[in-house]
């Protein structure tokens, strides 16, 4: 039977395997589905930060500085102006869509993934 195999078979099986593997990667990426953090601030272009390594970000705003901590696969609002601590209270943002807002500094942090993103967030 091996004799009846052709080069075309190798191509076909390789493509089929690639298709199946890709479908697993896309469908089941473990939290690696969260690919980056988007920081949107009033009056500025949205900034994208990959969630691949430890990193500290400082964002200046009208009320002071918002400190953002990034770790592989997640991010959080470490410290932000405002006496209600709403931004910090959101905790670790891990899944696509998770978000934190700092109204005093007019900014929003949101995790984005490989899947379809939303046109707008309702909260």
């Amino acid at each position, binding site marked *: 039977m091996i004799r009846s195999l052709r080069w075309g078979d190798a191509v076909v099986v390789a493509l089929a395997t690639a298709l199946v593997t890709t479908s697993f990667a896309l469908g089941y990426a473990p939290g690696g589905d969260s690919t980056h953090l988007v920081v949107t601030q009033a009056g500025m272009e949205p900034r994208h930060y990959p969630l691949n390594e430890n990193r500290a970000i400082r964002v200046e705003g009208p009320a002071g500085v918002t400190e953002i901590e990034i770790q592989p696969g997640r991010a959080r609002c470490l410290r932000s102006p405002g006496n209600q601590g709403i931004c910090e209270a959101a905790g670790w943002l891990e899944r696509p869509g998770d978000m934190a*807002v700092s109204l005093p500094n007019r900014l929003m942090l949101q995790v984005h993934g490989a899947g379809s993103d939303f*046109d707008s967030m309702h909260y």
Partner: protein
Amino acid sequence: MTRSHPHIWLRAVAALLLLVALTSCDRKPETDRLTFQAFGTLVDITVYPGGVHDLTRIESELSEDLEIMHASWHAWEQGSLGRTNQLLALGGEFSAPPSVLPLIEYAQELEGRTDGLFNPALGRLIAAWGFHQDEATGPPPDAERLEALLADPPRMSDIERRGVRLRGRHPDLQLDFGGMGKGFAVARSLDLLADLGVEHAIVNAGGDLMTRGRPGDRAWRIGVRDPLGQGVLASIELGSDEALFTSGDYERGYEWEGERIHHVIDPRSGRPSRGLVAATVLHDDPRLADAAATTLMIAGPDDWPLYAQRLGVEKALVVLPDGSVELTPGMVPRVEFRREVIRRIRAAEPGVGAIAP
């Protein structure tokens, strides 16, 4: 045969390219996003198609317009509403400022339909809880003060209206349109966008939003944040001219002696409403959506379906403190939950509640 050899490689390459194209289906930004501060909150505009409109001009026109509205309707700073409140308290007849009149008309209509649950005439009460300042703080009003405020509460019907002429008949009447102003603002912003040539957009003011047009041949994809966490509770698809408004206890407020004091005050008790974490309304009239969300928050877990029906709201959901969600039958097909929720469908007849799996 030499002629069939390139044939197969061509097909293989074509298939490979197709595979690559399919897997890298990460949508290129087909919409533009614009974020700016206005109307006292973060305003987020989504515009379709992307790369076509003058975003700078849109931002400046929209933010200017929204700031004018914000100033006109400001509940405690000097502006059209501030002046209106002063004149109403004096009791004489005066001409209503054009920016404020539509809100007064609408509020009077809604007060009737909600048995006074929706009552923007209680500005004094809201101020007593510390909400007439930028950063709300306590102390909350003591029992004596509350009693005094609730003894003879002013109502929208205490404003006599004849055409554009108004007269206040209650000295304590103070208008606060916090529970419905955003609805008006969002509608106006969409109209302004249409004037600027934008036919497909979402205007999102502090999380409350309305759509117009469609992004091509799909629906708008809206993510609903979980009021009890930071993840996505659900996703909702919206068509054209649909508004999504939520009133929640997590918005403006402060902690006082371990209790959460939030800005949605129940006129019956004079205290922040209890029982619901959030109430969400989907409707094609953003003014109604805004006011109804506020009303349902106040109505509470037992009566909210009744008031939804009274206001002609068919699509609404509420979130309870334990994380469970109740929905109207009309809302069920619109919402796609992203996490496990205990769901109950509530129909409007009081006492009737169906359990959904």
